[in-house]
């Protein structure tokens, strides 16, 4: 088990900047998810840790050893590829045994370890088959077995669940998390699925266009997004984002957009106004209460546009002027399209972002 450090790592393919100045520390035994949209440089980062790609700039450390120039075979890494990359001409047994054979492990020990891993992953029935005769979920487990059998210091997983159906995905999610905790292997898990990242990882590194956006634990990421990208990317349905300005009237600060005016809690306004006045207001769908009839004074009035029942809750689309809000409401609320209602955002849970830099100001 090791601590993995990426020190100012960049990777360019000609003009394409796949990863730019990435700093990341993954502690011993930690489960870190690399999260980001397609093409943001997740796989490239993983391949650099594995030693397949050499960083254009920067260093990679395992504990305190600089491994930047170490070939993959000397890094003691286990990796599951996006495509699983099982050797099609070998049986499942030989696939799993392959890393051990390369290490010149004695025959009986190979046999013992392969059977052990196969049992752990419940693929001991499949050892004689070829990869082409397996289902997606079985292939994924074989790939995981091949990565685990050599007892790697670092486990790299590249979207291992993306080819599975929804039910199996949820099952394997828990399975992988349990395995990781049980074995205590330092793990980097690449995914573009935020639910996967949130539910499995100790910490999440959110990336966009080759740059690290935020590196924090799931709760922090959700409650205190560092910038607009993270705010919009994490959470489903996504956060409501409205452009507007901070305006002062008689010592009170308001957020004013083209379609409504909202009083900011005292203290917050001053703080922001000292930095910028053009901002973006963010409120998560579950942080807005729908008020029928008269309510508090600091509310936004709108009309119900569409109601989408999600089973446990209602997703209510509310029009405020030109702005559309998505709000999660209790399933027993009776609402009709066209009905006038009042919206009361939770003051403690509003987010404000600088419109120019996209950075969070509170």
């Amino acid at each position, binding site marked *: 088990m090791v601590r993995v450090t990426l020190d100012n790592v960049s990777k360019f393919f000609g003009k394409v900047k796949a990863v730019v100045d990435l700093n990341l520390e993954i502690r011993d035994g930690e489960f870190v998810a690399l999260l980001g949209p397609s093409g943001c440089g997740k796989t490239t980062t993983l391949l650099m840790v594995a*030693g397949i790609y050499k960083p254009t700039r920067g260093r990679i450390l395992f504990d305190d050893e600089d491994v930047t120039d170490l070939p993959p075979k000397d890094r003691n890494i*286990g990796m599951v590829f996006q495509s699983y990359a099982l050797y099609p001409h070998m049986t499942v047994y030989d696939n799993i045994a392959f890393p051990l054979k390369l290490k010149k492990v004695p025959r009986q020990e190979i046999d013992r370890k392969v059977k052990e891993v196969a049992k752990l992953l419940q693929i001991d029935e499949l050892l004689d088959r070829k990869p082409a005769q397996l289902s997606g979920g079985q292939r994924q487990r074989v790939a995981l077995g091949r990565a685990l059998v*050599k007892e790697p210091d670092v486990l790299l997983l590249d979207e291992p669940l993306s080819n599975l159906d929804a039910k199996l995905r949820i099952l394997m999610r828990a399975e992988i998390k349990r395995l990781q905790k049980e074995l205590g292997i330092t793990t980097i898990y690449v995914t573009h699925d935020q639910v996967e990242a949130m539910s499995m990882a100790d910490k999440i590194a959110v990336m966009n266009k080759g740059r690290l956006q935020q590196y924090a634990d799931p709760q922090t990421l959700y409650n205190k997004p560092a910038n607009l990208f993270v705010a919009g990317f994490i959470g489903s349905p996504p956060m409501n984002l409205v452009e507007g300005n901070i305006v002062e009237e008689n010592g009170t600060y308001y957020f004013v957009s083209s379609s409504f005016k909202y009083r900011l809690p005292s203290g917050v306004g001053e703080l922001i106004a000292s930095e910028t006045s053009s901002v973006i207001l963010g409120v998560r769908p579950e942080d807005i209460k729908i008020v029928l009839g008269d309510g508090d004074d600091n509310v936004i009035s709108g009309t119900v546009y569409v109601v989408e029942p999600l089973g446990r809750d209602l997703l209510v689309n509310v029009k405020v002027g030109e702005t559309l809000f998505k709000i999660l409401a209790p399933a027993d609320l009776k609402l009709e399209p066209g009905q006038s209602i009042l919206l009361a955002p939770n003051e403690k849970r509003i987010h404000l972002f600088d419109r120019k830099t996209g950075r969070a100001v509170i």
Partner: protein
Amino acid sequence: MARESLRKRKTKALLRRAAVVAVILLVAVIPAIPIWMMYGWLVSQSFSGRVILGILPSKLTLDNWRFLWSPIKMGEKEYPNIWPITMNTLFLALGVAGLVVMVSSLSGYALSRMDFKGRTGMMQFIIALHAFPSVILLIALFVILNKLGLYGKGFMTLVGIVLIKAGLEIPMATWIIKGFFDAIPWDLEWAALVDGCSRWRVWRSVILPLVLPGIGAVSIFSFLSGWSEFLLVFTYVAQEEYYTLPVMIYHMIGEFIHIDWGMLAALGLFYAIPTIIFFSVSQKVLLRIYVGGVKG
């Protein structure tokens, strides 16, 4: 009403089927008849003393196959024994196949996987190279063989021809094998590297087994092209004992007066044996190629 339209539809389907059969007959079967007749003639001729109507054998005999166990004589002229000649041909074919497979499997890998300067230019050059027929190279090759001291040196001349023939075959073979390497995803190679392979070990343990069908195809094709090589042997080999089968058959056909058609037919059939073996064996290999290199 519905019943009638059903019947109509059935007739239509029948007509369409008849049309398809007619087209197949016209395009594929009828043109093949003369070819089959020629083969039929070859077989019946080689086993019979006399042939009726050019196709029906009579007087079954093995006399035409006597070249397998006795010296070949046609009229006054005595030809070299068939077995050394066959060995020459086999040497040429196997030499070409071996050399082509060895070089093209490595160069195909390099062209498919390694990024180096002038890679694209080299690939275009390879295609262009293949466009030249070997006839126009005869004189230049002659000069080279002479300079290397391989002309008129008996067995060494055959070695020289192996080199030339392989050189002519390698570009196309490289191209074919490159296609097989292209079909192997990078992930597979990377997985092997992560599992602990050196680059060479990846090639041997993962890549080579996956391109085996391609190597099979290339080796069969280059074997056959070496087996049937005529022009180079005809031009450069002076001594009769280093002839190959095609050249010897050619010389025997040139014998106008005493020509023995029966024996020639048997000889032709003997010469075709590797080709026949090839087609019965390769069907499976070629089918596997079609199914795709990487699908277990």
